[in-house]
């Protein structure tokens, strides 16, 4: 009985304490609320917060509400917002998802909402990534575009006497590249000849983004872009060869494994000699390695070179009650000096002409000039089709199995079937089926 009393007392005390703890903070604002959904690493997130504050200061009565979603689960978080009929006014999206969002009816044409000066300022690739192929309207806009280059450790490359290409036109061929990897694997201090950033994980857009150019260079694609069927494209021999090649690198321990992180190229001792890395890696690598970093074009595996493009861009949702304010915010953001300065510090790849002028990194003769050259000469966009979420997820999954030793033909066939199945499930995503 004593024990029971004691317990009762403690229960009561705890309840009282918890209740006292609920000093709920309910900040109610009657302002025009504009919800902005975005992703990004902590630095970017902080920057958006500051830009939002400045925008609020410049536009009294407007309240910018930032909603963060981690980019690996972004599409799911976005669906959750759609489900709860709680679409943000402004949202960031990865460019290849744009077709799906427009097809599903989430995105509003953005041209009338954006400051004409900013629209004028867009580069051709920026316009391309924000355009929906069916009606050729602009639905998204960004400050940046993106590319992937091959970073090299100068010392290691000199040690093996490798030829250092200086433009897209004299990029390494497959034979040359594999020869370099082979030789690098024997250099003192090199633990892995190349980091392909598997450390980003197995469910990350990086896989499709960074490795599709290898398929393209081999002469195949994720999906046939005229008939929109994947069988016959993704499971074709060139694609099988491309992934078998990568599997082979992994088998020889040439690639940094997934669990070893994403900093092996520029970490102490430089365990990785090359890096198949996004433009954003440059700032970190240059900070750690200085002149020892050399930027190379992606190798030419087959007939032609290929490089990725497209990045996270901004759009306005059809559900927005204040599309004009939403557009104003995007225009404000893209012109914000601090935002641009931060982007420069992150070696951002310019998507606006005026921003390109502020980015000496990518200018003629700049260290990342090759990335800019790739954008005009070899960039291949990811398929602008509403089935893209399935396309990328099927490819990621196939890649994960293949790189770990699975049979390339089998896995790619499964992936292609899965993609075609999804397209059939959605009646061919009209009007993409030509109707």
């Amino acid at each position, binding site marked *: 009985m004593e024990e029971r009393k004691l317990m009762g007392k403690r229960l009561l005390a705890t309840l009282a304490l918890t209740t006292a703890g609920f000093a709920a903070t309910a900040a109610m604002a009657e302002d025009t609320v504009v919800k902005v959904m975005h992703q990004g690493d902590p630095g970017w997130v902080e920057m958006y917060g500051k830009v939002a504050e400045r925008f609020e200061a410049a536009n009294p009565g407007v309240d910018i509400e930032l909603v963060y979603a981690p980019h690996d689960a972004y599409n799911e978080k976005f669906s959750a917002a*759609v489900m709860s009929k709680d679409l943000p006014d402004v949202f960031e999206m990865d460019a290849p998802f744009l077709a799906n969002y427009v097809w599903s009816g989430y995105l509003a044409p953005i041209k009338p909402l954006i400051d004409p000066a900013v629209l004028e300022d867009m580069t051709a690739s920026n316009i391309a990534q924000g355009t929906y192929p069916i009606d050729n309207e602009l639905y998204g806009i960004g400050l940046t575009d993106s590319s992937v280059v091959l970073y090299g450790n100068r010392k290691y490359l000199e040690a093996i006497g490798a030829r250092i290409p200086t433009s897209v036109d004299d990029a390494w061929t497959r034979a040359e590249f594999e020869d370099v990897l082979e030789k690098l694997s024997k250099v003192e201090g090199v633990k892995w000849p190349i980091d392909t950033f598997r450390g980003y*994980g197995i469910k990350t857009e990086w896989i499709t983004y960074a490795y599709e150019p290898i398929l393209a260079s081999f002469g195949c694609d994720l999906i046939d872009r005229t008939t929109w069927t994947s069988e016959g494209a993704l499971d074709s021999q060139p694609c099988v060869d491309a992934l078998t090649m990568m599997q082979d690198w992994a088998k020889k321990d040439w690639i940094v494994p*997934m*669990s070893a992180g994403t900093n092996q190229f520029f970490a102490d001792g430089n365990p990785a000699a090359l890096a198949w890395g996004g433009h954003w890696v440059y700032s970190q690598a240059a900070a750690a390695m200085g002149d020892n970093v050399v930027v190379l074009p992606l190798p030419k595996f087959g007939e032609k070179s290929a490089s990725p493009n497209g990045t996270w861009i901004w759009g306005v949702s059809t559900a927005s009650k204040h599309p004009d304010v939403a557009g104003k915010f995007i225009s404000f953001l893209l012109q914000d000096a601090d935002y641009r300065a931060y982007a420069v510090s992150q070696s951002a790849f310019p998507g606006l002409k005026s921003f390109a002028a502020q980015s000496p990194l990518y200018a003629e003769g700049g260290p990342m000039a090759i990335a800019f050259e790739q954008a005009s000469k070899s960039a291949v966009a990811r398929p602008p089709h509403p089935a893209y979420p399935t396309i990328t*997820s099927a490819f990621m999954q196939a890649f*994960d199995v293949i*790189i770990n030793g699975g049979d390339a033909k089998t896995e790619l066939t499964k992936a292609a079937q899965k993609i075609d199945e999804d397209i059939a*499930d959605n009646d061919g995503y009209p009007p993409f089926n030509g109707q």
Partner: protein
Amino acid sequence: MTSTPQVRKPRSGRPAAKGRVAQELAMIAPALILMSLFLILPFLLSFWTSMTNQPLVPRPTPVRFLGFGNYIRILSDDLFWTAMWNVTRFSFWILPVQCGLAFLTALLLHQKLPLQNLLRGLFFLPAITSMVVVCVIWGTLFQYPTGPFNQVLGWVSGGRLGPIDWLGDPEWAMFSLVMLSAWQAYGFQMVIYLAGLQGIPEELYDASRIDGASRWRRFWHVTMPGLRPTHVFVLLITTIQAFKLYTQVAILTQGGPSNSTETVVHYMVRSGFEEQKLGLASAVSVILFLIVLVIALTQRQLLRRFDV
């Protein structure tokens, strides 16, 4: 279930009876309404949804009735069978590790020791640790190539073994999840075993002592038979948990590498949430229910056999 109170016939003649029943109904109603709404209704809905191509979010294409189309697609999907195989593998591995750990610690603690409560409390601590927190901790323990486990492995083997890519190697990933899951959950089963040990009548030990049985014999002939129902219970609970494996996978491996940690629930969430095929996901959930039902019925049968 043993002490069900006698069902008394309602004394319909009494005027107050009607009012009493009404009041009782009012008392049980909230539970019944909530259960109907959030348990029975979604359960029934899952059967219906599983027969359609219901998408997660509305699409410009119509929702159609597919019959058993989703089931056929799942059952002919290699990935689903990989997931089934993985959870089976998981339960085979975790049974000895987790139940063994639980059993041994229970044996250790089932003796009159000073500080007994403190000791039990310490052993039980991992069990109150949330799986998400467990993932944070073990995520660092598993670091490759220089995490604690790999260091220890190196020392113990004099550098001959490892480093092992615990979560990144398809050969090891599921086993790594087994270890962290066992560490998190053994406490519950330890407690169940403790209860089981306490439930063995002392007279049985006395009797066998008089017969001059050795401690070892007493263990095999008194303790183990006495724990039989506990073993069955623990085994089946663990198996059901294995089939529901999700959180660790979602946080640490996302089903990879090479689908080696794909599980039934992860497959369900993948199809429903990522691929937005809610109909398909509902079909998986029905299949999951059937699996759990079979395990639960097996448990009931076995326990009845042991007559508890």
